[in-house]
């Protein structure tokens, strides 16, 4: 099957993530996971590996799982290592002719399991060159345990460990740029995407990542209505604003070549993305204008450097 995306054709594929899981209503992880799994060809099977995360606790309730494919979870920090082990076992069995068909290996982990706790095993698996896809669904904090800050949390964001008060005004540090860390591993495919529009961007990147031989990495923005504090029905709006304000640019790096996959028609001011979210509410209080100015300056600086790299 070609990589050309046709929504009408994609809907004919069987759903690989079933309904009735325990993710919150309006959770971004649900559409991210079903969007990535939809990129698999109909006849191919997958092994889904999951780090401990919101996704794990809500889709895997013993003795049931919400995945139609094989599923494995072991711990928070070693999802990439688990996946590489399964992949190595599969290769050994395949050499002996004990398994048939194509099996793809996909790891899902949250930003806590990727940016912080699982970074060592992710780095190791990428360096060893296993044929797997590591998908980070980035909701910018440890949502599962009660919205604690992670190294993925944006600057000034309110979390339960970076509260607003006289001692502090949200997180003090900028977000870690994980996608660039993964680019530095010189793996075949690294991409940053988000579920926008008719999911063309998410789908084509997932397809490329799954069917490119070797380790591939996807970093996908996944809004969290509880942690980000916005009305749950606004899931797609928030994602679109993140992309259009260039807070979350969409790009891919294929064999070291940077390419921009979506350039907003009009680059919106970062306030548009911050205003609907309760976690940034304090930035709009009188006297805190400098916070918005600094956030805008940071986004502009990152965007300029990305434009330079992609040669747009």
């Amino acid at each position, binding site marked *: 099957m070609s990589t050309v995306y046709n*929504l*009408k054709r994609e*809907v*004919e594929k069987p*759903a690989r*993530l*079933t*309904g*009735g*899981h*325990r*993710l*919150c*209503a*309006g*959770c*971004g*992880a*649900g*559409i991210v996971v*079903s*969007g990535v799994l939809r990129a698999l060809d109909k006849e191919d099977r997958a092994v889904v590996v999951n780090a401990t995360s919101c996704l794990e606790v*809500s*889709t*895997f*309730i*013993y*003795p*049931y*799982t*919400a*995945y*139609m*494919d094989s*599923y494995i979870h072991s711990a928070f920090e070693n999802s990439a290592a688990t996946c590489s082990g399964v992949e190595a076992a599969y290769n050994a069995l395949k050499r002996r002719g004990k398994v048939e068909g194509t099996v793809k290996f996909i790891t899902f982990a949250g930003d806590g399991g990727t940016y912080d706790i699982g970074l060592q095993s992710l780095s190791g698996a990428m360096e060893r060159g296993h044929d797997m896809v590591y998908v980070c669904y980035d909701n910018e904090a440890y949502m599962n345990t009660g919205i604690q800050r992670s190294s993925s949390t944006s600057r000034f964001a309110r979390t339960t460990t970076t509260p607003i008060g006289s001692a502090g005004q949200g997180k003090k540090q900028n977000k870690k740029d994980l996608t660039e860390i993964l680019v530095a591993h010189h793996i075949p495919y690294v991409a940053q995407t988000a*579920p926008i529009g*008719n*999911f063309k961007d998410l789908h084509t990147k997932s397809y490329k990542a799954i069917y490119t031989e070797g380790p591939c990495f996807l970093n996908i923005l996944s809004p969290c*209505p509880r942690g980000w504090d916005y009305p*749950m*029905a*606004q*899931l*797609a*709006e928030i994602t679109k604003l993140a992309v259009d304000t260039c807070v979350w640019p969409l790009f891919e790096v294929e064999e070291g070549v940077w390419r921009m996959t979506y350039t907003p028609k009009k680059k919106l001011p970062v306030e548009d993305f911050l205003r609907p979210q309760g976690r940034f509410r304090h930035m709009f209080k009188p006297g805190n204008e400098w916070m918005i100015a600094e956030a805008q300056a940071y986004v502009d600086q990152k965007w300029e450097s990305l434009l330079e790299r992609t040669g747009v």
Partner: protein
Amino acid sequence: MKSVTKPYRPISWPMKGAGGDTGSWRAHRPVIDNQICTKCQICWVYCPEAVIDRNEITIDYRYCKGCGVCAVECPTGAISMLKEEE
């Protein structure tokens, strides 16, 4: 729900409704107006719960949590959110 086959094994089975009947979480019920619906299937793409039937465009209320993402995303405004009766 499917019962666990004996002897007990440390294996989970894939099934719909792994988390129970999550439709009971719902406060607002999405209702599709078939007169306006053009069957563009955008609601199916955006449904985090995968409860929308992709051909008929009907909603499985047993698992729908009523997040309202489909109602916001519907390009023709065919989906409205009605308050769930007690």
